[in-house]
């Protein structure tokens, strides 16, 4: 039975009763029916009205409220502008941070069925464990839970040479190229935009790319930038490093690999580009892995199956002899790509920043709420009249809430613009790293949904309480009283609570900012153990054609000779490891006269450096001598150790003259078995991180353990721009196999390791100050209003002889109460929540009393000043004017 049928029944019953009534009065049945129809009125018209009432009641009253609200807002342009501006800042900032969060953590890869993808890692007791490349191959061939199993060696910068038809060639340095297994594109489910992708056939012949050539797939961006989307790109050959590669396909637009934040220009198969050493090494790992679950297989089952297989293969491999059951395979959700340093570094800071901007939004909402309350005072009379003529309180509240929602909507529109600019700025802040962060900031469904939720949430937050307070009006007294009534008692209390809340939240942010600031100061005051100023560091990519020790050693010394000839170079050196680059090499050692404990494995970090290294970076020698030219390739092997190593392995004796050797039984490659004499001790230093305590470390001459060059250090007073070109040319004169990835001052290289801390500190400080400004504006507004209300009272007091100080104190009493409440709420809140920052702090606890005291003092001073200005104005009240205004 539809409502239409129901209504028909009702109408029919009514008509029949009317007809009966007329019949009783003597009309015939036909006449009675006519009369009934007349009495009833137009049936169709009524049905229309009925349908309207049923369907459009909501829309009708909503439309009415919206029109009315827009009229109201246009009549108060200053109020509207201030409210919308505050909201735009708050909503925009939140959306900006969310956009970044979305791009970094939430967005799924643009591949087929991304929910089926998993990242494959191994663990031992929850700690990282290795899956070597040969192990990966075994797993791939024997497993049956994956539809496909992919290896990727990440991005490597290459020199790309593009020959043109005229016979010359364009050389591009530092082009990121991804090395991936042959099934990469197929397993990810990405269709080629042009041409084809790799097959298993393309991914064989280890280390053959230079000799036999290879194939390459270009990214859409690279194709556009370098080739102008020329469709004849296929079958052209470009050189990746020294390998000629046929271009076989173009990746679709929007695909930028499996790693968030990186965007390879091209992909090549991993096997032709990797050495036998890497591909067959079961003791090392240079790849990461992803897989696609077979349809119907869930992750838990797959994980269990893979773990069993892994343990079996470990036993068969023979490298791990016992406790193979401690090893497991872990499958993590791969829909958003691999978990990489960028994400790990910035995931927490961004979450903290989200919390910070949420607090700023709350403060902005409190300001708007106070504005609404203040305006509500002016509208008390209007509300009284409307209630008197029959408007229900619910309708009144609805109208005020409409105002909130419209203000919020306007704020959201303006906020979208803030978000657009802000997210770009944020991305710029986190891009202060080794490579520019290629995050694609998209304003997709999630971001807009977030914007909408935040806007609505804000509307409720700042609109509901004022709406309820303002409409709690008893119409009688309001109509009788003079219209200058002003804020009622409960509204005033609400207003004061909002200000106290703002003060509390601002205190929270200020304390956070203060803690982070002082942490960074502490970190910067640390003695790094070397003199980083005036040193330029060149991050090198060295792919030597001849890898025999003599050739490598020769390259190193030639480079050094050329560089030292350059003007303004005080000293220079090359080394195999770059400071503060998170790279590490350790060597298993057997140290004479040192017996390791039963469970101890002596593996010590080391760096292969040229003569002059310690002098160039300013690491002071404490005993013995440094590495010199005479420590050549065929000379007796020597090493310089640091204090920690001396303490650990040579305690109580003088290490100079003692010997050690690389433990061949545990080494990966075939190292020299010769004894290494210790010739010097150097002061401890921090090599990779500010926070890490120094560990044992030793330096060997790069001539004696030749390897490809990773870093060139130059001590010079010149800035990088002045000297980089000369260095590049000098290197090119020695060999074409070295490519400069980056050049930057060592101080900057060191600071980059604190990127997350610095980002959080900068944003916390910025938003903390913004919050304080908003809170002070709020306080100023409320106090101004309070003073205006009490003008008459002040006038009377001054007429009776009160001096300026007394008046100021009168006003200040109220302010003091608000500030005290704010601090009383804010301090415990801060103590509870600064715990979140503990990972970023250094040298002080999350509840450091000095910082809290300073932050509180700043806040109280700023708040007092904001309240002082209206208080001073109060003293200038002319008593006569004030009394007359009553």
């Amino acid at each position, binding site marked *: 039975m539809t409502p239409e049928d129901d209504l028909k029944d009702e*109408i029919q*019953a*009514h008509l029949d009763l009317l007809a009966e009534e007329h019949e009783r009065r003597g009309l015939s049945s036909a006449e009675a029916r006519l009369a009934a129809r007349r009495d009833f009125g137009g049936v169709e*018209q009524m049905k229309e*009205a009925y349908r309207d009432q*049923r369907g459009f009641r909501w829309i009708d009253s909503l439309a009415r409220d919206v029109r009315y609200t827009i009229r109201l807002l246009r009549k108060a342009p200053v109020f509207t502008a201030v409210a919308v501006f505050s909201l735009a800042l708050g909503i925009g900032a939140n959306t900006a941070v969310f956009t970044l969060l979305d791009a970094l953590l939430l967005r799924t890869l643009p591949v087929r069925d991304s929910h089926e993808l998993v990242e494959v890692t191994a663990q031992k007791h929850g700690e990282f464990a290795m899956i070597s490349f040969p192990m990966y191959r075994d797993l791939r061939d024997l497993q049956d839970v994956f539809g496909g199993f992919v290896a990727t060696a990440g991005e490597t910068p290459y020199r790309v040479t593009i020959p043109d038809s005229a016979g010359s060639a364009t050389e591009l340095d530092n082009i990121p190229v991804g090395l991936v297994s042959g099934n990469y594109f197929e397993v990810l489910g990405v269709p080629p935009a042009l041409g084809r992708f790799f097959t298993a056939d393309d991914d064989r012949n280890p280390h053959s790319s230079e000799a036999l050539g290879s194939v390459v797939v270009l990214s859409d961006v690279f194709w556009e930038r370098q080739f102008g989307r020329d469709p004849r790109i296929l079958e052209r050959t470009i050189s990746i490093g020294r390998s000629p590669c046929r271009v076989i396909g173009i990746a679709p637009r929007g695909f930028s690999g499996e790693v968030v934040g990186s965007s390879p220009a091209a992909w090549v198969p991993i096997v032709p580009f990797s050495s036998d050493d890497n591909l067959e090494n079961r003791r090392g790992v240079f790849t990461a892995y992803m897989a696609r679950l077979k349809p119907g297989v869930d992750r838990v089952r797959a994980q269990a199956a893979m773990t069993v297989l892994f343990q079996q293969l470990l036993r068969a491999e023979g490298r791990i002899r016992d406790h193979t059951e401690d090893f497991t395979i872990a499958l993590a959700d791969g829909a958003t790509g691999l978990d990489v340093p960028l994400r790990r570094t910035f995931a927490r800071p961004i979450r903290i920043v989200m919390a910070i901007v949420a607090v700023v939004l709350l403060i902005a909402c409190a300001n708007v709420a106070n504005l609404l309350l203040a305006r509500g005072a002016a509208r008390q009379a209007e509300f009284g009249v409307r209630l008197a003529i029959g408007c229900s309180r619910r309708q009144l509240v609805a109208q005020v809430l409409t105002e909130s929602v419209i203000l919020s909507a306007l704020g959201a529109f303006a906020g979208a613009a803030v978000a657009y600019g802000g997210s770009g700025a944020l991305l710029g802040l986190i891009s202060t790293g080794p490579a520019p962060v290629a995050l694609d900031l998209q304003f997709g469904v999630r971001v807009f949904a977030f914007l909408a939720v935040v806007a609505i949430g804000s509307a409720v937050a700042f609109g509901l309480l004022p709406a309820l307070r303002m409409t709690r009006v008893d119409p009688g007294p309001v109509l009788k009283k003079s219209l200058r009534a002003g804020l009622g008692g409960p509204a005033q209390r609400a207003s004061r609570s909002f200000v106290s809340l703002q003060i509390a939240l601002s205190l929270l942010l200020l304390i956070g900012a203060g803690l982070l600031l002082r942490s960074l100061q502490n970190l910067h005051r640390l003695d790094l153990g070397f003199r980083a100023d005036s040193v330029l560091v060149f991050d090198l990519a060295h792919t030597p054609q001849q890898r025999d020790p003599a050739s490598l050693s020769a390259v190193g010394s030639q480079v050094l000779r050329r560089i030292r000839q350059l003007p303004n170079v005080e000293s220079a050196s090359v080394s195999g490891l770059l400071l503060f680059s998170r790279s590490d090499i350790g060597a298993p050692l057997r140290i004479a006269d040192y017996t390791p404990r039963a469970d101890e494995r002596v593996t010590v970090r080391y760096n292969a450096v040229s003569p002059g290294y310690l002098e160039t970076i300013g690491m002071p020698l404490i005993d013995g001598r440094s590495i010199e030219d005479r420590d050549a390739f065929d000379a007796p092997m020597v090493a310089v150790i640091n204090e920690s190593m001396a303490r650990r392995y040579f305690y109580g004796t003088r290490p100079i003259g003692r010997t050690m050797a690389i433990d061949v039984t545990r080494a990966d490659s075939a190292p020299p078995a010769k004894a290494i004499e210790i010739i010097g001790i150097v002061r401890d230093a921090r090599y990779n991180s500010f926070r890490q305590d120094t560990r044992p470390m030793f330096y060997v001459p790069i001539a004696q353990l030749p390897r490809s060059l990773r870093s060139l250090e130059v001590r010079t007073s010149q800035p990088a721009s002045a000297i980089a070109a000369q260095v590049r040319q000098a290197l090119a004169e020695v060999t074409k196999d070295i490519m400069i990835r980056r050049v930057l001052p060592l101080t900057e290289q060191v600071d980059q390791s604190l990127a997350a801390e610095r980002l959080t500190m900068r944003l916390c400080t910025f938003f903390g100050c913004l919050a304080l400004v908003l809170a002070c504006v709020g306080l100023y507004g409320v106090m101004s209003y309070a003073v205006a209300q009490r003008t008459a009272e002040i006038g009377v007091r001054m007429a009776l002889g009160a001096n300026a100080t007394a008046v100021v104190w009168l006003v200040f009493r109220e302010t003091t109460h608000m500030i005290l409440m704010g601090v009383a709420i804010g301090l415990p809140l801060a103590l509870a929540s600064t715990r979140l920052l503990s990972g970023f702090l250094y040298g002080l606890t999350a509840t450091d009393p000095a910082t809290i005291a300073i932050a509180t003092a700043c806040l109280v001073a700023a708040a007092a000043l904001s309240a002082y200005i209206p208080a001073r104005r109060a003293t200038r009240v002319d008593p006569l004017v004030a009394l007359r205004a009553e």
Partner: protein
Amino acid sequence: MSAALSEVPYGTLDLMILKTLNSLGAQHGYGIARRIEQVARGLLALNQGTIYPALLRLEQKGWIGSEWGTSENNRRAKFYAITRAGRKQLAAKEESWARTVAMVNLLLEDHQ
């Protein structure tokens, strides 16, 4: 003078319906319309059908409730009754109406 009931503003019709239901208890549409006409003592000629949108509105606001039953002539008819919220509304409306009348009276007196 008589005015078609559809010219009387919403508020007044609602008041009359609520008052009727309060006095008579549960009634169907015909009964309510009849009673209003009776009480208005010929000052109103009612297009009786127009109470149905009003009844729907009152039911939407929760001031009256409805139930299906059988009318005196054995037809299926909807019976309406006032709710507690409706009774509160009635009291409030009666009070505010009285105040409005008093205020208008004062204004009129002042100008004489």
